[in-house]
């Protein structure tokens, strides 16, 4: 082979190997960080994964918010109007967290079936319902007898 061609071939091969390595690593990280959304009804039905993080969304049940006296630990109940899941969170809740408001939380289930949230998200608009929550409520309502 022509030496110049050879050099170019080496470059191309190195580039291809580099890119495929990067793509493989990226896709692996991508797979691991996909967070699926589940409604309280789906969580109760056991559809949610037990070993990895996922997102849950619903309305915060009125009078369900319980704060710890000394720390920032807080517990509340999320509902899609049919089923309920208890959520615990240690930290400062977002500005628009209120009872009756639709929220989304990231985290995972513990062995008692309580959802331990690492992050709680509420939308910055009082009229705004997270679309996932709206859809989950619709689905729950249509599935219940």
């Amino acid at each position, binding site marked *: 082979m022509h030496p110049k061609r050879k*050099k170019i071939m080496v470059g191309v091969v190195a*580039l291809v190997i580099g890119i495929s390595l990067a793509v493989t690593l*990226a896709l692996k990280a991508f797979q*691991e*960080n996909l*967070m699926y*959304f589940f409604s309280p009804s789906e969580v109760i039905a056991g559809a949610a994964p037990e070993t990895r993080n996922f997102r849950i969304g619903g309305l915060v049940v009125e009078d369900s918010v319980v704060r710890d006296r000394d720390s920032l630990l807080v517990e509340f109940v999320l509902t899609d109007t049919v089923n309920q899941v208890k959520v615990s969170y240690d930290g400062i809740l977002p500005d628009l967290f209120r009872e009756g408001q639709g929220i989304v939380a990231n985290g995972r289930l513990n062995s008692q079936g309580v959802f331990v949230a690492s992050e709680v998200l509420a939308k*910055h*608009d*009082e009229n705004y319902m997270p679309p996932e929550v709206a859809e989950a409520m619709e689905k729950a309502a249509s599935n219940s007898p």
Partner: protein
Amino acid sequence: MIPELGHFAMVMALCMALIQALFPLAGVRFNRPAWMALASPAARLQCLFLVLAFAALTYAFITHDFSVAYVAQNSNSALPLPYRISAVWGAHEGSLLLWVLILSFWTIAVTYFSHNLPPVLLARIIAVMGLISIGFLLFTLATSNPFERLATPPMDGADLNPLLQDPGLIIHPPMLYMGYVGFSVAFAFAIAALLGGHLDSAWARWSRPWTVMAWVFLTSGIALGSWWAYYELGWGGWWFWDPVENASFMPWLIGTALIHSLAATEKRDVFKNWTVLLAITAFSLSLLGTFLVRSGVITSVHAFATDPARGIFILVLLGIVIGGSLLLYAMRAPGNFRSSPFSLLSRETFLLINSVILSVAMAAVLLGTLYPLVIDALGMGKLSVGAPYFNFVFVPLMVPLALVIGVGALARWRADEWQRLWHSIKYVLLASLVIGVLIAVSLSGSALFQVALGLVLAFWIIGSSFNLLYERIRLQKNRLVALLNQPRAFYGMTLAHIGFAVTIIGITLSSHFSTDLDKRMAPGDSLSLAGYRFVLDNYHSIPGPNYNATEARMRVYKGDRFVSEIRSQKRIYTVRDMPMTEAGIDAGLFRDLYISMGEPLGDGSWSMRIYHKPFVRWIWLGAIFMALGGILAASDKRYRLRIRSYATSSSGDMAEALK
């Protein structure tokens, strides 16, 4: 009356855009110089009408004309004047008007700064920008008219979203749009060049300053957005990999690749096809960004529009622009690969690596941003991609990029030798390794390797930038004169590269050494963080123009020395009954002290969050350096000189015929 005039001005602007797009193209086709000459006056008239429309909308906001639906939704009689003006682009309809207005600013800038170009080329460029304008004006008039009246005007308006009532948000959107829309110039030039079949280095030389300026605006816009998120959202974070942030970051990545690839195309007549493809991609991603933010498909703070009809319109628009330009590219891109030869070890190769890395990074961000949308659209469930994915992909990609920056600028065009390069870089490499590792060890954090890596790379970039400067003046007789005689473009590049390094330092140190505390605090309580003692004085009630605030006043001591008093607020905006956190920040070059109020916990105490963030300012300081570097490079005098020589040397037959 005034809103109707504004609406009429928009319709007139659309008519001008039609003239601006169709006559020049027909003129080129049928060889009618008079038709082609219509391009510039039509563009200027279009701009005039858009300014009128924009002024009419602004007037409606200033005078509280709540009979206009858009004003009623986004303003209030208690809203202070500066926010009434910025409310013009505070939501969907007005920001579209701003988008086309900025497009017309760029267009007339092209008409003023490039009358030395061959008339055919200029006519085509302006016509392409006119076509884009037609698309957006049609979209605005058909689906999002900001001047729509309400049959029964409300007594008062619904107020501007309190998140947007902030000085940072007055300039963030216009900056970002200047950047997005600025890539339309590079795009229009690429399309015009493809239409004419003349892709040469003159094309690259001409579009370089425009592309760099668009990039400067985009850089500033992104940095402003990040800074705003940092102090306004109250979480102390500066980047969230939120889809809307990604939407502005993707054109930035490709834009960065584009300005580097243009350099190679101009100087060495290589990568022409690739550069054109990057120009098309950068603008397509800008459109995609507009689409992602404005169509409401994304669940995000920024996505204020939630009308699917608009989304479909933009999707069609996007399809036409991207599909059409790629089709043209496939048909017209120079097929014969007769570009200038270069060896494996040359600046061309390093610039190619830069392009590839930035494109791969963009693809990774695109995947993480669009995948949830696609899955949702196919009805396969709701999911989101966590920030760890982006960090995991991004950090390893930035390592080779930073390495290449140091060598690439030093390497010679066409061919270089390893020996020469190694001789030139070995001391810088050694010094940055030693200093970086030593500092990382002395800081003794938990993530020693990451900190050392970040610092070594940053010092490597800074060191090799100065090394390059030294190499350039080393052999001159009078080094001081040589130093002053270096072109602005060179200093611009150096400053921008150093800016990148400064940002790396900021990101590395602030993400590994930030500490924070969440605590329940009553008046008189105190706590210690990172060597500082925070004493909560008291909570005060403060009335604002359209909100009521509770203000926490905290005194900060280091040992016995008083440092500052930090005031942070929790505001309740009365019209929307919406709470907002105003973080209190004691900013410094080497550390920020950041306090945000959580919630009232009864018995007079609040949950408070306190952060110590070392070197966080460096993230934005680096962006400022990058933007200044871009300005310096774009103002290099050789662009002005070369344009003249291009106009005389180019021997396009039409150009001759039209003289």
